[in-house]
């Protein structure tokens, strides 16, 4: 989480890519692919990234890729990394296999007519590698920046015209989304909870107390009560107690509340 997911690419020349402290730390040595070199999961930002990693790891000359070997390693890696579900990786795998086959075709007698089937791939890899170098540079620059804070307080210059504004359509659309997200929807307010049924609870309590002089609260709410049932029963109990129909008692603190029928004449 705290590391840049930026790969460090192979040491070539002394350009900006060198001295980069950013390496792929999430490339843990838990999946050895082929002999001896280690790849790891997640951290690949695409098939070119993985391919470049395989090439650089083995110090293969990019302009003369042993395509059969690399294709095999690529396939092994994506199946091991669980990337063989991703269309982009499969597409690259297919592409490598096609190049492999083209390499096997007999060359025309006139060698000048021969077109290296790997040429386009090499071009793409070099282009990608270059983008990677810039990406690393950007990461380092952003990292430096985020550790060195500039001045935070900006005084308004006296009597100066207001600074130019920057805002754009995406800003506006983002604001639209924010406003929409903030508008409470009418139906959120319409609570369709089951209504309380105090009358029903009162009837049930009276029926129970006809058979026995005393019941406990748990019996009163019935089996598998809903919140509404519990609250309805509670209100009914309190109301009946207020009217002197029942009495509430507890044997000791925290023990179940017992509902005791008062004498019949009082309840009337």
């Amino acid at each position, binding site marked *: 989480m705290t590391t840049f997911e930026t790969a460090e690419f192979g040491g070539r020349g002394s350009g900006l890519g060198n001295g980069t402290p950013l390496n792929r730390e999430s490339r843990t040595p838990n999946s050895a692919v082929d002999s001896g070199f280690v790849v790891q999961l997640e951290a690949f930002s695409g098939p070119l990234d993985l391919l470049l990693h395989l090439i650089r790891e083995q110090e293969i000359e990019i302009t003369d890729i042993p395509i059969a070997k690399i294709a095999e390693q690529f396939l092994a890696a994506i199946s091991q990394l669980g990337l063989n579900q991703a269309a982009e990786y499969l597409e690259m795998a297919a592409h490598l296999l096609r190049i492999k086959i083209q390499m096997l075709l007999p060359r025309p007698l006139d060698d000048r007519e021969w077109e290296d089937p790997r040429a386009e791939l090499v071009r793409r890899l070099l282009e990608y590698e270059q983008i990677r170098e810039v990406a690393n540079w950007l990461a380092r620059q952003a990292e430096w920046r985020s550790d060195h*804070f*500039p*001045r*935070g*307080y*900006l*005084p*308004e*210059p*006296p*009597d*100066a015209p*207001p*600074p*130019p*504004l*920057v*805002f*754009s*359509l995406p*800003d*506006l*659309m*983002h*604001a*639209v989304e*924010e*406003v*929409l997200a*903030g*508008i*409470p*929807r*009418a139906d959120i*307010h*319409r609570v369709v909870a089951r209504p309380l049924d105090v009358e029903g609870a009162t009837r049930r309590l009276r029926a129970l107390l006809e058979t026995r002089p005393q019941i406990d609260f748990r019996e009163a709410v019935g089996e598998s009560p809903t919140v509404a049932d519990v609250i309805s029963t509670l209100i009914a109990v309190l109301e009946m107690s207020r009217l002197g129909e029942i009495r509430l008692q507890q044997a000791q603190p925290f023990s179940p509340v017992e509902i005791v029928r008062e004498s019949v004449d009082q309840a009337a």
Partner: protein
Amino acid sequence: MNQLTRLLEAALFSAAHPLGMAELRTLEPAATPEEIRAALDELRDIYQNGGHGVELVELADGFQIVTRREFAEQIALAQIIQRPRRLSAAALETLAIIAYRQPVGRSEIEDIRGVAADGVLRLLQERGLIDVVGRSESLGRPLLYGTTPGFLEMLGLRDLNELPRAEELSVALRPPEPATGP
């Protein structure tokens, strides 16, 4: 300069607003208020006696490093403070509502966003993005706002119909229904 003084200098420098004692303490919870006071005194003395171009001031809501007044004019003349500003989220949201619901009155905007809008409206008007375009016929004849040509220009639009999803959003951006009673 001791380590605490250096930390306070860095924090005060980078903070966008004055820092009160409570905020300064969160920087270094191990330090006592007296130690922080002492460090602030040290910093103030260094700026004062070292003949710096800035000074440490204590304001109502905390401490702040500010440039010395004597340089204000030269700095303003050189116009080096100027830099593009982004609109605040509040301003953008208000602008979004006006763009899609114009002409629209202040109270409708406030109903939608749930907060007072006058400050933001004034700012947007000063910046030339909105303007008063009329008065409502309803009680009190409140002012109605709309976007300006400057607004379209900033977005590179020819007219309001080029706003994305204009019809759909002008319907969606409505004040919420009053909550239904129990």
